[in-house]
Every structure is written in structure tokens, then in C-alpha cells.
């Protein structure tokens, strides 16, 4: 049938010539190519000492943000947990007591907030879902560890360091 797009090409498979069937010239060519690669610049990044440059919209480990006065932004609304396709986020909400206004911005806050880094696929949907701009995936790589339980990051690891001053 005629091709509509006119881009159809019939590929012809020629029988191999004697030189091709001998196979050795091809091997010599391959050896020359790999030999040249010995002297090329090495691509290796020496990881712990050197890090790969990451792009601006890189999604790394999560961090829970504080506002300009150093109060935690998260209000434990659970939208991030709902949005998460990997079911990685769990939290327990608590009510802000008198005298804690300097710690939490909203009346309700997350007493426990856990992200299971083994479940997380670093899709960034939690970041998009958050109405309070409380969670961002702006951290570094996830590092290796020995026990599964150590991959469940609590608030101690997630919340940003308190503001100085």
C-alpha cells in the first residue's frame, strides 16, 4: 500500500561482504575505539567529596518550613498526605496551647509528622498540595542507612532549623 506520509523507507539487508564476514576488521575497529576511550576525560564524580550539580527544580528530601518569625507553617490539614500517591506521609494533629504562639503559626499544628522515605517517590505532589507553603522538597539526597525504621523521618529531621537572632 502506498504510504501516506511518504516517509516510509524500505531497508535493504545486503549479504555481508567477505571482509565483514571475517569479523576481524570489525573487532580491530572496536578495539581502536575502546582504546581511544582510555585517554578521554573521566566522567566519574567522586561522590562524598564531590557532588553532581543539581538543577533548580531538583526534588530532594523534604523540609518543613518556618515563616518569617520562625513559627512552623504546617497546620496539619493533611492535604499533602491525601495528595501523596505513595502514601508516604502520616501525621497527628494537635491544638496549639496558650503560650505556644511563637512556635506554631496556626491554631492547629502537626504534633507528629512522618515521611517514610522508602515509600516516597519524590514526585513533589505534597509540595504542590500544601496550602500553607509548609513543605518543600529542597533537601539533599537520601542517604543510605541500615534499618528500615531509620528511613521514617520525623519532625526532628524534617523541620527547618529555627531562625537565629
Amino acid at each position, binding site marked *: 500500500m502506498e504510504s501516506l506520509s511518504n516517509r516510509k523507507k524500505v531497508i535493504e539487508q545486503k549479504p555481508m561482504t567477505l571482509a565483514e564476514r571475517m569479523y576481524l576488521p570489525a*573487532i580491530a575497529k*572496536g*578495539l581502536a*575505539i575502546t*582504546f581511544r*576511550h582510555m585517554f578521554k*576525560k573521566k*566522567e566519574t564524580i567522586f561522590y562524598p567529596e564531590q557532588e553532581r550539580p543539581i538543577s533548580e527544580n531538583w526534588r530532594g528530601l523534604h523540609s518543613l518550613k518556618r515563616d518569617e518569625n520562625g513559627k512552623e507553617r504546617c497546620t496539619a490539614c493533611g492535604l499533602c498526605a491525601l495528595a501523596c500517591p505513595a502514601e508516604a506521609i502520616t501525621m497527628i494533629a494537635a491544638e496549639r496551647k496558650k503560650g505556644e504562639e511563637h512556635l506554631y503559626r496556626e491554631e492547629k499544628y502537626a504534633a507528629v509528622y512522618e515521611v517514610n522515605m522508602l515509600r516516597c517517590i519524590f514526585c513533589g505532589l505534597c509540595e504542590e498540595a500544601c496550602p500553607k507553603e509548609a513543605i518543600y522538597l529542597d533537601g539533599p539526597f537520601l542517604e543510605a542507612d541500615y534499618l528500615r525504621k531509620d528511613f521514617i523521618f520525623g519532625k526532628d529531621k524534617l523541620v527547618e532549623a529555627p531562625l537565629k537572632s
Partner: protein
Amino acid sequence: MELAFVIEKFALVIVIFMISLGVAAYSTLAERKIAAFLQGRVGPHRAGWGGMFQPLADGAKMFFKEEIIPTQSNQFLFIAGPSLALLTALIGSAVIPWGQSLTFGDTVVQLQVADINVGILYIFGVVSLGVYGIMIGGWASNNKFSLMGAIRAASQNISYEIAMGLSIIALLMVTQSLSLKEIAAQQSGFINWNVWAQPLGFLIFIICAFAECNRTPFDLPESENELVGGYHTEYSGMKLGGFLFAEYINMFISSAVMATLYFGGYNFPFMNDLGLPQNIITLIGVLFLFAKIFFFIFFFMWVRWTVPRFRYDQLMNLGWKVLIPLGIANIVLTGIWIIVKDTYFK
């Protein structure tokens, strides 16, 4: 006198044993380094300067790993497999002339453990024994992947031994001797290297050597992506190390055999025109032999990281339909050449 002889040979055996193990250990590092360089990486470089101690780290790791002997396996043969592989890999070095002779006062030390007059046949015998280690190990594992790998190894070695033998017959027609010492001695200088007289024979030999050592492109016995690990699927710890080590020792020995048979062994260009004392010449010769061996080891690795693995039918086609006829043609051509030379160029 007798005692001195025994001590001399014993010392030589120990030295060669140590060197074989050392070269094999550092071949593992070299393999990883060369693989890395050919692929634009740097390879292991953390343990010691530039990764110098990596073989030690690997060895220590092997020793500390858990040794698993499958319950359904034949325990005795399971352990015998890697031991046999190592043993047969090591005893090949006995007949290789590592150098000429060293003279201390009036004792002459030959740098060869055993100068037997059928040295080449001995090497062949040992090389064909090598497949038993693989065969036994693969069979004793009681695992179909292991068995498959072992069967492949056996059929591959048998097929390529024939072509290798044919290439050697042509070489023997030129050298008129089966003793490796004499073959090496005949090739003094540079012009007399057998590779100039037997280029086709050398080509066949080196291809067969790749196949006999189970190196890529002929590493079907352990092809990881079809057979898990081939004949050593069930092995762990130092028994696995034994198999891997045997492969590297085999590579070292076959490089030494190639260097001796075709590339002049310990001979180097202008060795008789330098006017140096015999001992010095011998030592330089040993260095040259090792340089040649290392080149061949490098070549083995270089090919490994360039050429992909053959398919099984291609392997058998190459062995039976290409290399064997070529080997026979080479014998005929060599015969014609010898007659022509004897009648017209005398």
C-alpha cells in the same frame, strides 16, 4: 648435590607459585581498572594509592563471606570443583621457561621448573584437565544453571582444543621440537620469533586461548544474563574466589604460553649484541617475558570490554566450521612453505 637440586627446584616452584598468585590477584584489579578506563570511569581507587590494596580488600571480603554449601549438593565434589580448578590452573606454569640460566660460581640455575621434552603436550594435558574443575563444580551444585554452564564449558573447551592443537602442529613443524625450552631458545633476537613464521597459526591460537580461558567473547559458561552465574551460581565465599582466581591464573599461564610459543619468550631484540654478562641478559629477558605476558593479559581484558559475547551456535560454528578448517589449511601451507624453503632458499 641431590639436595641442592631439590632445594633449587623447590625455591623456584615457590617463587613461581607466589608470582602466579600475585599476578592473578593484581589482574583482578587491572581488570576493574581497565574496564573503568575503557568506559570513561576511574575504577577502584579508595583502597590505597590508586586502589593498590583493592585485591587485598577483595580477598579479605571473600574470606569473611558466609560459605554456603547447598544441602542438595554433593559436598565432596562441591569442594573438589574449585580446588581442582585452582590446581590445574597452577601446575601449567611448571614447564614454562621463565628465562635462560643464572650462573652463581659454578652452579647453573635454570629458570624453568621442569624441562620435559614434551612440554607442549603437558600444557595441553593440563589445560584439558582444567575443564574438570568447572564440570565437577557445576554438576555438584545440583542446579540447572550450574549444570548448563558446566556443559557449555565442557563442549566449548573440547571444540576449541582441536583447533588449538592444529595450530600447534603447524608450529611444531617449524620448530621441530616439543620442548618449550628449546622452542624459546630457537627464537633469539627478534626476527626469529615464531609469530612471523606462523601469523595465521597465532591468530587461531589466540582465539582458542580466549575460548579455553572462558573469557569474553567466549564466556558462555558463566554468562550472567542467561545463566545467573553459570557453573559458579551456587558458590560463595572463598570457593567462588577459587573459581575466579583460577580464571585469572589461567589467563596468566596462557599469556605466558603465547609469549613463549610465538613471541620469543624471554628473548628480546639485540640481546646478543649488547655485550652484557649472561646473568644480566637473563634478568632482562625475564623482564621482557613479563612485559609480553602483561601485554597479553591487557589484551585479554581489552577484548573483554570491547567485544560482546557470542551466541552459542555462533561459538560452535566458529570453532568447528571456521577455525578447524583454517587450522588444517595452515598445516598444509606450512608444509608447502617448509618444502619450498628447503629446496629453493638453501
